[in-house]
């Protein structure tokens, strides 16, 4: 056994982590399959979920191409319904929720100064259950994929109207990914509560960690009801129960309540970690502390609380009394307040900063500009009489892509650009990154902005085709062209990763002048993460460390490999 210290390019922020090189005795793939290292599990999560993102994207493109012209016969109604079901299910259950689990797996222990997750083997189980869920679901491609939409409203999802096993595969996907997320959530909660570095009180917790803590709590609250609901659906389908069967005193509306009691917190499960990342990346590249740390952290908790009280705004057209509609309108309005507070605080952070325009910051700024639009259309939809016109139309499709794509996918790509150097030790190419950003940003807006107009002119969602004389053709064509530009943007990022994974510039420990502890170790970090865990004295421990070194050495700290992102 030889012990070697990993050399960093400029080791001045005293990174003390040594890599222990153990000669390999097993095959590389066995290492991956048997690993309990949070970093390796995190990488497996990310690779898996990005593969599903790619598949979900292909499904979306197929649908967009089908809709590019009226009366198109490229796809049959059956295939179209299968694609819309798979696209929605994939993006929610197999990409956005678990990709955050992937990032969190890698970075929660690093950011709180821990050496692994609280339950490393449980962590591995979470990953393998996710993969199993994805395989069960995608295996239906060889038989008959489900076609009742990602909400699977009964009676459409009942055995009578969806006899194929695809619907059952969907149920098992919810169960498997649900247990995976639940175990992951318990693990994150235990890790964050118990394993923080000395001095990291709740008021010094990085905001991404706050977000993951709340993400975990929301998952623990939201997943049991949907697990119950899909179990009831399963017994309705195969074991003679009638929970949702109106012909036997069951109620389809019961499903809607149970599903959306999960479904709306799910929205915040997807975007809160995104908000957390925005709150981490913007201060780093503004060279400024986050404006209103307490307000941002508190708003995360308030959003999570309110998120459990707004579910029926998905059901404004269902048979519900007006007083119920009024309650859910008000609770949905209320959730706009903490969300607005976050946006104002991000703007406050940019204000009078010194913005270092990296790709990661581009994606963060893109997120704010896009998410504002989604937040505002949310107010329209929360107003229930207006929702009677807009619900189930392309306006809603536009709205939730502005919120989920804006609030989650932009931050996911921002996190990828921000953390890639830490995970691989290599920099991504900034020029390719910016090209990718502009393609994604322009493609995104071209795809989804016109969809508001489609909804307002009467186009319902989930229709396989439409007649030529309805005034929808031009908007649909613009939207399809936009989706291709959007896809090109992602292809550029994939190329960027593929090219620079091995050949990118060496990053060094702290290429961005980061604020948090993950930068206080080598890139990529060694198995034990840190040799010495520093005492945390503020919400920006890495900055304190840099200052201390500056004081002691009298030298302005340069950062490994990328001075061009340092103070200009």
């Amino acid at each position: 056994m030889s012990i070697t210290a990993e050399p960093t390019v400029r080791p001045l922020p005293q990174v003390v982590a040594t890599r222990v090189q153990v000669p390999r005795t097993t095959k590389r793939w066995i290492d991956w399959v048997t690993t309990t290292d949070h970093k390796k599990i995190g990488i497996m999560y990310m690779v898996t979920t990005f593969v599903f993102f790619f598949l979900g994207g292909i499904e979306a493109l197929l649908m967009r191409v089908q809709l590019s012209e009226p009366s198109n016969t490229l796809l049959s109604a059956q295939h179209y319904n299968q694609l819309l079901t798979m696209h929605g299910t994939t993006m929610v259950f197999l990409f956005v929720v678990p990709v955050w689990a992937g990032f969190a797996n890698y970075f929660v222990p690093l950011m709180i100064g821990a050496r692994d997750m609280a339950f490393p083997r449980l962590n591995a189980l979470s990953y393998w259950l996710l993969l199993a869920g994805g395989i069960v679901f995608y295996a239906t491609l060889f038989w008959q994929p489900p076609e009742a939409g990602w909400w699977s409203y009964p009676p459409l999802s009942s055995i009578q109207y969806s006899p194929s096993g695809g619907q059952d595969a969907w149920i098992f996907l919810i169960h498997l990914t649900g247990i995976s997320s639940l175990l992951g959530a318990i693990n994150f909660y235990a890790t964050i509560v118990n394993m923080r570095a000395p001095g990291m009180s709740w008021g010094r917790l990085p905001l991404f960690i706050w977000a993951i803590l709340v993400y975990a709590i929301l998952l623990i609250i939201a997943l049991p009801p949907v697990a119950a609901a899909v179990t009831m659906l399963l017994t309705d389908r195969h074991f003679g129960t009638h929970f949702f069967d109106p012909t036997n005193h069951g109620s389809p509306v019961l499903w809607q309540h149970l599903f959306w009691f999960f479904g709306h917190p799910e929205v915040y499960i997807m975007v809160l970690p995104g908000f957390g990342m925005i709150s981490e990346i913007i201060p780093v590249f503004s060279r400024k502390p986050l404006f209103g740390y307490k307000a941002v952290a508190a708003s995360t908790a308030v959003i999570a609380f309110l998120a459990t009280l707004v579910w029926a705004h998905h059901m404004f057209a269902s048979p519900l009394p007006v007083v119920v509609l009024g309650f859910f309108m008000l609770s949905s309005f209320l959730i706009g307040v903490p969300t607005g507070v976050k946006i104002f605080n991000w703007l406050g952070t940019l204000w009078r900063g010194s913005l270092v325009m990296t790709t990661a910051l581009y994606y963060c700024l893109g997120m704010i500009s896009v998410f504002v639009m989604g937040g505002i259309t949310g107010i329209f939809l929360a107003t229930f009489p207006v929702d009677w016109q807009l619900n189930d139309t392309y306006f809603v499709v536009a709205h939730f892509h502005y919120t989920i794509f804006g609030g989650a996918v932009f931050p996911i790509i921002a996190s990828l650009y921000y953390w890639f150097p830490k995970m691989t030790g290599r920099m991504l190419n900034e020029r390719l990154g910016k090209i990718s950003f502009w393609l994604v940003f322009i493609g995104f807006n071209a795809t989804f902005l016109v969809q508001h107009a489609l909804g307002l002119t009467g186009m319902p969602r989930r229709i396989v085709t439409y007649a030529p004389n309805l005034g929808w053709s031009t908007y649909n064509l613009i939207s399809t062209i936009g989706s291709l530009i959007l896809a090109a943007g992602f292809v550029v990022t994939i190329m960027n990763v593929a090219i620079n994974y091995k050949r990118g510039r060496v990053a060094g420990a702290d290429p961005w002048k980061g604020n948090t502890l993950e930068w206080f170790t080598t890139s990529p970090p060694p198995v034990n993460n840190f040799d010495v865990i520093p005492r945390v004295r503020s919400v920006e421990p890495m900055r304190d460390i840099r200052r201390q070194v500056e004081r002691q050495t009298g030298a302005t700290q340069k950062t490994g490999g990328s001075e061009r992102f340092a103070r200009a």
Partner: protein
Amino acid sequence: MPRPRRPPAAFLAVAVAASVIASLLLAPSAMANFITPKAGGSPNANQIASLYRIILYVAAVVFVIVEGTLAYSILKFRAKRGAVAAQIHGNTRLEIGWTVGAALILVVITVVTFVKLPSIINPPNSSAGIQLSAATTEPAPPNGKKVTICVQGRQFIWRYTYGNSCLSNSFSGKLPYSFTTMEVPVGETVILDIQANDVIHSWWIPSLGGKVDAVPGYTTYTWFKVLHAGTYRGQCAQLCGRGHAAMIAYVDAVSPSAYQAWLARQQQLIQTANAQVSQLRQILTANGNL
């Protein structure tokens, strides 16, 4: 150290503006009204559109302020040689200010909504002589005079039964019925009793008001009062299976007298057809073919 290469300063703002403007310009000019919901057919649709427009004005102001601040910050506060970021940690007054400000905007929208609500859910008297709501109880105009039509959603067609007792007699009462195209009198308040026979459907004619789900096991209600004669198009808004896109509905609004005449003719056509079917059945049974 080489000076960092920066993209053109105004790029972001220009791209935002360009994608907005391009989408708006490319939209067909005939479709003048693409930023507000369809309206014009019925008072409830008009009231929803007017409520929407009020929210739109407020939203536009918020949107411009937030996106403007963002664009200004990006252009103004880029890293420059010698620039030092202001180390501000926050400002409690500002936090309270924007929290309260956001809440006040929402209070205003809430008040406006509840002021508008009665005109959206309560049907008016018929102009010619007939009240209703998107609600779980059947609404009625103040004077109680109305035209009731039962709407049944099924895979993948809409069936309409005409007559005040249609809910209890939709199949047995020998009431006139029609498929896909609903015939209604202009100026009369029409109450719709909406049901589904198989899966969930959603009744929606954009110009005549908001959508109402047709849920098996439930009866939901809505109303409209068509202001101008003409044909209004809509389609099922809830995924109901492979024929979802084909589940189209038309509302054909004609004068009350033409409506009466149509009802009589439809009644007669149905009776004739029924008679022919029973005749055919007799023949087939007699021949041993049935």
